[in-house]
């Protein structure tokens, strides 16, 4: 790729540029760490002095709570439950969303027929279905998986479907003139250009999968991070609520990063075409 860069008249990235980029990164990191330390310090300082710990707890109490859960083994058990629900819901929802989105995108008649139903279900606040799912599938894992699946399904489905409508007709036409069969057009034009949309749908649906699972847990269950929040709040244990929220935050960020990396891998052309 060296000749390419040179011929395209791009300035070569020299050692100076790399060094200054590293400097910049160090500065940004220093600021981030600074904000975290100051934020936690202020929190710890005002808690018990100006604001009752009952309202805002304190970083040290939250840490102690986390450590306590870790010692007793509860932490992993709850994380595992919530993660299982989220991941299963995400996978089922994404797979069925892509399949249904493509089916409707490639079949104009089917799309026309189902349009009002799809809109009706899409507009429904999915969370409102949680009581129904608990009624049908019990207080265990299944009702939360169904909940998360349902939420993810609509987000991924809608993006996939929109992606098939956004495929550039000119690209399709050029391939038709080259003698491509319908299936070849699907494979070589439609699927690759919808991929970007599918990824967007998946990326935005990851936090929603987690929401689906957690909301289900908060309504009825005896395990999972949602349960932990609900149970801690029920006992006026603010540190417990914050501790569970903290864990959720870590999980959500981790999932987001994971998806970002896999997107980079699969859409390499986009990464390089800047």
């Amino acid at each position: 790729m060296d000749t390419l860069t040179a011929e395209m008249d791009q300035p070569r990235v020299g050692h100076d540029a790399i060094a200054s980029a590293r400097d910049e990164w160090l500065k940004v990191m220093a600021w981030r760490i600074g904000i975290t330390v100051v934020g936690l310090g202020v929190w710890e300082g005002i808690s018990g002095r100006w604001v009752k710990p009952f309202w805002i707890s304190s970083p040290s109490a939250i840490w102690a709570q986390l450590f306590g859960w870790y010692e007793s083994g509860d932490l992993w058990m709850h994380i595992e439950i919530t993660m299982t629900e989220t991941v299963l819901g995400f996978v089922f929802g994404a797979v069925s969303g892509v399949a249904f989105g493509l089916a409707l995108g490639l079949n104009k008649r089917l799309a026309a027929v189902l349009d009002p139903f799809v809109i009706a279900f899409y507009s429904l606040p999915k969370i409102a279905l949680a009581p129904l799912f608990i009624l049908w599938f019990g207080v265990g894992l299944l009702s939360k998986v169904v909940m998360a699946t349902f939420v993810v399904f609509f987000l991924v489905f809608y993006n996939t479907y929109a992606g098939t409508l956004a495929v550039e007709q000119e690209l399709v036409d050029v391939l038709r003139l080259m003698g491509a069969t319908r299936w070849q057009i699907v494979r070589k034009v439609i699927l690759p250009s919808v991929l970007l949309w599918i990824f967007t749908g998946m990326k935005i649906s990851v936090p929603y999968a987690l929401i689906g699972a957690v909301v289900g847990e908060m309504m009825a269950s005896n395990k999972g991070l949602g349960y932990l929040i609900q149970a801690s709040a029920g006992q006026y244990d603010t540190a417990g609520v914050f501790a569970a929220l903290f864990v959720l935050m870590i999980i959500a960020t981790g999932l987001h990063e994971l998806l970002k990396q896999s997107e980079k891998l699969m859409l390499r052309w986009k990464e390089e075409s800047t």
Partner: protein
Amino acid sequence: MTPLIEYRGIARRFTTRRGTVTACEHVDLTVHEGEFLAIVGPSGCGKSTLLNMAAGLLQPSAGAVFYRGEKVAEPNTRVGYMTQRDTLLPWRSVEDNVAIALELRGESRAERLRKAHDWLHRVGLKGFESAYPGQLSGGMRRRVSMARTLAYEPETILMDEPFGALDAQLRLVMHDELLKLWAATKTTMVFVTHDLMEAVTLADRVAVFSPRPGRIRAIETVDLPRPRDVFRIRFDPRFGELHDRLWGYLEENVREGVRVG
């Protein structure tokens, strides 16, 4: 010469919110096998519409288009189409873009890459085989499009202002390459442009269109010898004479356009 494409009594109307627009009407035009025909006219005179009809992507509102005597009713797989806009697949590398038509035909990967590399070499893009279109400049992408269109050797090539977005010098370079490649393949070419200079430089015959509704105003044969030196030919007195005569037809339109607008 054998007629390859025949437009007979063509009209095309489009319905818009503000009413019906006639893009072109009363068009009778024959494209002969192996010739290089240029269609010149102001923008919006239905030139692209004619190409779309020959490609079978658009049906005329009146009249019919015949390809080798058969009415064109569906996408015509015997033509290659190089459109004004980029239609490279952004997720495919340059070599895979050039090879795509061969891939559709089921040629082996080794064989189609060999051909793709050969064509990329011919259009001066050696070393860019594995780049993505998004990494290339506009001129380089045009070359890739050209290589892709030529690589699968369609019987006829339709070009819709293929070099419209390039600067003047680069256009001349592209003209030179196009003529060399065309001389080697002897494909039938239908080349749409609004640039008269470009039309006379490249074509065997030039058809001049009037503004909307587009009609053929004149067809002139360009009897300049080949191979042509695209960089010098416009200083040839015969070139000037022909250019002046064709400009006469266009000028009326341009002046009318100014008066109307």
